[in-house]
């Protein structure tokens, strides 16, 4: 099974997950500080900062791009409910 690693910097927890996992599927299980609203990529509540390894995430969809722009996202911001880790190691924190 292809695997990937995600580090939630705020709680210093690293998880190993199957490649293709969306961050929403694990962040709550480990108690990371990312919070969710609609869980469907529309509200922007779960915007997080990618501290490292952004190249290991699937590119944002048109919907995610639109919501990021509407929420004045900076470079490195993604929505945790949408971001899918494809492999390697990604480091994230809330915000």
């Amino acid at each position, binding site marked *: *099974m292809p*695997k990937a690693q995600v580090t939630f910097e*705020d*709680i*210093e*927890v*690293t*998880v*190993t*997950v*199957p490649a293709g*996992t969306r961050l929403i599927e*694990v962040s*709550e*299980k*480990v*108690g*990371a*500080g990312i*919070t969710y609203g609609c869980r469907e990529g529309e509200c922007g509540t779960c915007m997080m900062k990618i501290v490292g390894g952004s190249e290991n995430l699937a590119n944002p969809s048109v919907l995610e791009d639109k919501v990021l722009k*509407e*929420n*004045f996202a900076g470079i490195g911001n993604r929505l945790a409910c949408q971001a899918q880790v494809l492999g390697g190691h990604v480091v994230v924190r*809330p915000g």
Partner: protein
Amino acid sequence: MSLADAVIPGRPVAVAPGVHWVGALDPEMRQFDIILRTANGTSYNAYAVRGHNGVAVIDTVKEDFAGDFFARLWACCKPEEIRAIVLNHLEPDHSGALPELLAAAPQAPLYISRPALGMLKGLLKDGLDPERIVAVTDDTRVELGGRSLRFLPTPYLHWPDTQCTWVEEDGLLFSGDVFGCHFCDARLFNDRAGDFRFSFDYYYQHIMRPFREFVLQALALIEPLPIRLIAPAHGPVLRDHPQTYVRRYRQLAEPLLANEAAGRDKTLLVFYISAYGNTARMAQAVRDGAEGVEGVRVSLYDLVGGEPGPFADLIEEADGLLFGSPTINGDAVKPVWDLLSSLTLVKVKGKLGGAFGSYGWSGEAVGLIEDRLRGLKLRVPRSGVKVKLIPTAEELAECAGFGRDLAEQLVGRAGPRHIDFTAPQALSA
């Protein structure tokens, strides 16, 4: 109408040379934005500022009061004289007359903060020419001739878009909701109106307090200004000793009693409630475990003996919060929810949180509390401890370990952890 009334239907009120109040009174309002009560109604304050070259309109009113606003505005200027429209805050009680004003003065640009751009789209949908919108910066000046406007970024007081407008030449601060209150009085000025001090404090506590750190940032910008008059968007115009109200914000934004441990120790509060003493014993064990970690000041509170208000004051200052609740009929008990629902008035985002509790059948309380803590944007780094009925010595040791772990998290000594979700046993993690 008394002789002391400054507000007369259809007439603007001069608040400074060349500056008029063109707002509206809403004396019947008793509940505002669902969360606020008012014994005296409110006012929607808008202002017209005249220079040699034209007029700036600062804020508008709630849509229902647009008639009052325009009657006053057109009594002190012509539409073609308007050179600038400023919205310090886009909430509908200030932007209700904006579409009509934009249509009446098509030559006037709209000056708003950058975070207001997205909100404006939501308010006006596709009804505004983007060329007319100016997202202001620190360098933006609106020259009216003899006086000019500049803008102070005061975000989150109380929306992301909020700003103040400053007229340096006259020492006038158009402060939006900052320094405002829901107090309707036709005498209009703070030295003439009835006693509105409780309304001023109440407004701060319910509207501004959750954004205390932003209040302090804003005060750092506002306090050095040589203010001669504060013109807020609600309540009396503060022309008599306006600095008193700035100082009051400083007092309200800082704790009455300093936390002696702040700066030296992290503070961890353990709240609990217990039906048969089981959750109480768990709370004591959690406390004992946390206390063993150097640099953490732990306090234990029985929710039965306190009120949400003072507890919320403590929580505002704390670094970590733990809640112990039994599960009764599949839920945490009401005093826990009473406290957790009071926390919208204080900033808790980023604090550390956790839950524990004894249960008889199913133990849902812990997970429900954790969900609420996450909803309030606390960090919940460890799954809580659930104990069926009476805790054994081993289970109390587990509680102590839980307290110790969280205390170590607080002081940054927990160390990194790794969880493998691809391993079969991780499914129950």
